[in-house]
């Protein structure tokens, strides 16, 4: 039993350190990236992954203290796993619809053909 507790705590430490690493990476991206599309991309991926890893680590820690009440953390994880990517997707959709200019040197524009159709539909 004591080996299980020690194993869970070591796993918790590894997961929390990984999550903090992803949070720091997301912050560097948010500060240094050149335009809102790149910033939202970094924020979405780094934040979601860091949040997931940190909370899984804390969940392992709670399992050693109080296993039943740790289910609340699972609820937060499941909610944020859906909520955060949807929020970032909505932000990017807002950027695209209001025609925020992107950085010089962007080569791919996959929605170029669909742009005319959508404007026709809206009119």
């Amino acid at each position: 039993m004591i080996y299980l507790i020690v194993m869970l705590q070591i796993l918790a430490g590894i997961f929390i350190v990984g999550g903090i690493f992803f949070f720091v990476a997301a912050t560097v991206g948010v500060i240094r990236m050149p335009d809102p599309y790149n910033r939202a991309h970094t924020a979405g991926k780094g934040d979601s992954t860091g949040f997931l890893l940190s909370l899984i680590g804390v969940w392992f820690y709670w399992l050693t203290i109080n296993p039943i009440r740790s289910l609340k953390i699972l609820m937060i994880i499941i909610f944020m796993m859906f909520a955060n990517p949807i929020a970032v997707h909505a932000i990017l959709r807002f950027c695209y619809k209001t025609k925020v200019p992107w950085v010089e040197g962007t080569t791919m524009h996959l929605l170029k053909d669909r742009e005319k159709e959508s404007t026709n539909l809206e009119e």
Partner: protein
Amino acid sequence: MIELDFLLKLAILVLFCTIFFCLYRAVLGPTTADRIIGINVVGTKAVTAFVFLAAIFQKESYLDIAMLYAMLVYVTTIAFVKYLEQRDLGD
């Protein structure tokens, strides 16, 4: 047990440093989308800090606050984006 407590406190310190740097983007962002991204990132990190605090003090009532705050951040982002995109919140 003691080492993990120290790790959690260090993690909260690092999280608050990164929150400060994200507030820079939220205050000085050139476009509106940058500000919304900054607020979203700050909210996610605040939720994580709440969960870490719950693990340090071993009080599960903090987890309720974290859950509520996660919902609040999500609704705030969606409402801002929808209003700025359509000039109307719909139903």
